[in-house]
């Protein structure tokens, strides 16, 4: 029998989303050794599949005061510790003629009691701030919303945690737990890329698997009820708004327009789905139509703007009393299974949202540290993440665009370690200004194993052409920096296009279809990509069309 690799650690964290990676960092900063597992890449689940809104809390102020207070508190912390993941854009809550203007006062009062600053604007003031907002608006309230890049947040958490001794294992799935009596002492796992099995022994296991947390509990023979609610979003080709635009009314479909780096996105729909469907989300034509139609009410220019892709995530809502997906509290659910179910060494952190991920991690790590007898206080709210540390002398000096873009994404310190040669600075992804040096850094330092991971770390392929131009160039860099053969890098290329295709299909019309046709002509017509799948097969006479 092959020897199974064993890892020993104090804490095993399952799930590499915003919560999991925040726990990883929190543990590492407190000197607790930990290993984080994810069945895919970090931020590949719900964390990377929302609108990346840095909530001020205003959206929840009227319906859920507690969430609103958590949001504004974390909003302020994140602006401090994760400034490279954040654009402090401000947000507008606009009232359209069909909305009730009286709601504005309710809204402003609720914000005030949650501690959220607001500023009432006239329609003209709102238009001056955001020229693309629907000009028929009758009023607006400005709030401290912003944008938050979840991929960068997770990557920075991991980077900091690793520099404090933590360990990350991506593409690693839990298959079962190892128990002694009423105590979980570890997990049997498999690496899904290599199919190698391994075991992780830990004093405490934390289930931070979000919506997949129900499955993890199953392995421990525990039951939690989760209410998966799918939310779909559309990505537009370029930035059409500089401020987040919300509707000033009770939350509904497609009422948030967020500028995210070089694009804008509109979200979200909400639809309850069966738990069995959480890994095969489909975006319907109807959802796309609703998003376009409702989005156009926030910014009419959206109707003429090219749609790049659609994507969907599952809200990890925990059923604490029924109701539909949106009305259920998104409150934080921390389950100490020793207390709740008599199973020691196992806790679950469920519910919550991207905004509160750090707070959720703090609560969880407090619980675990207590169990482990570690008395170090949490410091994740005080210490800036790598990438957010800027030197005071940083002035806008003349640098090449790839360096500028990379500095936004990774911070000065990291960029200083990039290959500074001409080759290192050269552009690979022209839409998002990703350089050879940045890709090398991502492959070597940021646990990138394929082009899809690379996209999450660098924005490569997220732009107008959806990877059409850069994929060929970038895949070959996996030969240079990732020990890939030319054949393996060809497979990475194919995998990337298949992944992109998922998001293009639902919006395959207009310029998205033109771009897809161009990409297909190029990679299939000119490059013969699909033959990669049959490489090694000998020609057979039976495959031929003869008389």
């Amino acid at each position: 029998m092959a020897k199974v690799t064993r890892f020993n650690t104090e804490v095993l964290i399952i799930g590499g989303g915003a919560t999991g990676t925040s726990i990883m960092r929190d543990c590492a900063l407190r000197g607790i050794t930990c290993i984080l597992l994810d069945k895919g890449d970090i931020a590949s689940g719900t964390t990377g599949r929302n609108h990346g809104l840095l909530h001020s809390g205003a959206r929840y102020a009227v319906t859920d005061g507690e969430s609103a207070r958590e949001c504004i508190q974390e909003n302020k912390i994140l602006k401090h510790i994760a400034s490279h993941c954040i654009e402090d854009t401000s947000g507008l809550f606009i009232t359209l003629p069909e909305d009730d203007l009286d709601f504005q006062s309710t809204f402003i009062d609720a914000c005030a009691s949650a501690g959220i600053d607001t500023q009432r604007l006239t329609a003209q003031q709102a238009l001056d701030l955001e020229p693309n907002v629907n000009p028929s608006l009758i009023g607006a309230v400005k709030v401290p919303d912003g944008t938050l890049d979840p991929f960068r947040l997770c990557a920075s958490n991991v980077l900091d945690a690793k520099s404090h001794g933590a360990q990350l294992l991506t593409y690693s799935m839990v298959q079962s737990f190892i128990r002694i009596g009423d105590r979980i002492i570890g997990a049997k796992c498999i690496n899904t890329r290599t199919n190698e099995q391994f075991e992780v022994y830990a004093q405490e296991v934390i289930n931070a698997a979000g919506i997949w947390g129900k499955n993890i509990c199953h392995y421990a023979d525990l039951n939690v009820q989760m209410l998966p609610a799918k939310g779909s979003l559309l990505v537009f080709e370029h930035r059409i708004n500089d401020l987040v635009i919300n509707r000033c009314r009770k939350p509904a479909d497609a009422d948030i327009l967020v500028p995210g780096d070089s694009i804008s996105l509109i979200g979200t729909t909400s639809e309850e789905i069966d738990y069995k469907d959480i890994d095969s989300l489909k975006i319907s034509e109807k959802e796309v139509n609703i998003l376009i139609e409702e989005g156009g009410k926030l910014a009419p220019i959206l109707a003429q703007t090219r749609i790049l892709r659609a994507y969907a995530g599952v809200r990890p809502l925990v059923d604490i009393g029924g109701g539909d997906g949106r009305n259920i509290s998104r409150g934080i659910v921390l389950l100490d299974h020793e207390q709740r179910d008599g199973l020691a060494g196992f806790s679950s952190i469920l519910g919550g949202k991207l905004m509160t991920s750090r707070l959720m991690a703090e609560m969880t790590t407090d619980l675990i540290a207590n169990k482990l007898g570690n008395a170090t206080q949490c410091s994740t709210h005080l210490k800036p993440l790598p990438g957010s540390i800027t030197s005071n002398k940083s002035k806008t000096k003349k640098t090449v665009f790839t360096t500028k873009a990379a500095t936004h994404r990774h911070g000065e310190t990291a960029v200083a370690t990039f290959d500074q040669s001409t080759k290192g600075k050269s552009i690979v992804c022209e839409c998002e200004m990703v350089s050879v040096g940045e890709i090398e850094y991502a492959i070597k330092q940021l646990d990138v194993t394929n082009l899809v991971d690379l996209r999450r770390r660098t924005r490569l392929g997220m732009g107008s052409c959806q990877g059409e131009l850069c994929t060929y160039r970038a895949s070959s860099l996996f030969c240079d920096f990732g020990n890939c053969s030319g054949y393996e890098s060809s497979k990475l290329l194919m995998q990337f296009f298949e992944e992109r295709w998922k998001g293009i299909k639902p919006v395959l019309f207009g310029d998205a279809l033109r771009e897809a046709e161009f990409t297909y002509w190029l990679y299939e017509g000119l490059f013969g990509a699909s033959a990669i799948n049959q490489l090694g097969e000998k020609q057979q006479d039976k495959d031929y069309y003869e008389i």
Partner: protein
Amino acid sequence: MKFDSIIIGGGIAGYTAGLRSLEAGLKTAIISNGQSALHFSSGSIDLLSHTPTGKAIRNPAAIFDKFTNEFPLHPYSKVGKQTVFESLNWYKNILTTAGIPLLQQEDGDNHLRITPLGTLKSTWLSQPYIHQLPMRLNEHTIKRIVVVQIDDFRDFNAKMVTDNLVQIPEFEGVEITHTSVAIDGFSGLKRNACELRSIDIARILTNESEIKALATKLKTIATQDDLVVIPAITGNGKGLSVLNKLHALTQLTFHEVPTMPPSMLGIRLEETMIDLFIKAGGMLLKGDQVTHGDIAKDNNSSNDELSLKRIYTRNLESMPLTADNYIFASGSFFNKGLIAQHDKLQEPVFNLDMNSNQARSTWYNPQFFAPNSQPFLSLGIKTNHNFNPMLAGKVITNLFCAGSNLGGYDPIAEGCGSGVAISTGYHAVNHLLQNTKHNQSQHLTSDSLV
């Protein structure tokens, strides 16, 4: 303004029709809305590589009758065997005479070319520096393959080509290596040399000393027994002259492989066709777009048929253009010959009938590189057996469709894009001549062009 024939669209179908129309002595205009998709094509002419059912084809002529019987709605079945082969020979001759020889297998077989991913694709006519691998690949005579990486050039990767080529079973025993070569002119540029595209390198390589330097380097890495696979990085406005020089200096056997866009191989074809068209007196409206046309009842027709009276363009505004016959070679989605709205397909100029009105969920396959290709590639304009399109079911008798705006075939999966473009463009002029009964039509020769 009045012409004998107006061709809408400046791609391979449009220029074929334009050149053929000029040959027939007709006053001809081409309206071209930007440059064509040849800019990212292989520069080889595909005739027919696969059936719609996915079977590979070795010799298109041999199976042609069987094919047309089995797939009667395919454009080739409407054009007919004789015209298909006549048109391709005609095309081959005019391009060859104009300095871009197009070569083929003596027995009329398809041949295989190496792609930038190191896979093989089947085609029918290729430029001289494409080494034609036999369809029965085990009959190849290659001893060694050297794949050339141009230093700092990211739009062609020799390692990917090499590592995939070695996996082809028929290449067992062939030594396949890759090696890199620097272009002297890259140093001293203010711009980052790693960001140069094929066209930029082609410009550098118009310099005699650069060509000589490259030749010297190539001679050190390969011998005359080798097949030297190089990216297509020459030919900016000068056709094949740089490669001819490289060959003369090295005596090496080259296999040019297209790169990421732009493809120099395809550009050579387009440049040559434009040059021929202008020199033969054709009127080329570059960068203009037909916005609409006036269509009315065809007075010569006893049936309920229509006729296109005049067309309007974006640049000429209220000044219409008229012709006896019009050829519609407006391209597919990329070229905006077809438009995909979120709820329907549309032909944007005349609102012609389409070959499908199914929902958009039927336009694509779940996988991008699906074994059976993408359905949207077969979408297009519905035509009668003469390639006349229809407006609400009524045939437009003096409008002929050609090339990729036609529905009912898959240019990529069937490997027939350029063949369909050439044969339908050529065929359209034949029909148009029947319509006009132009007195010079009996003097049709390709000599009048060159």
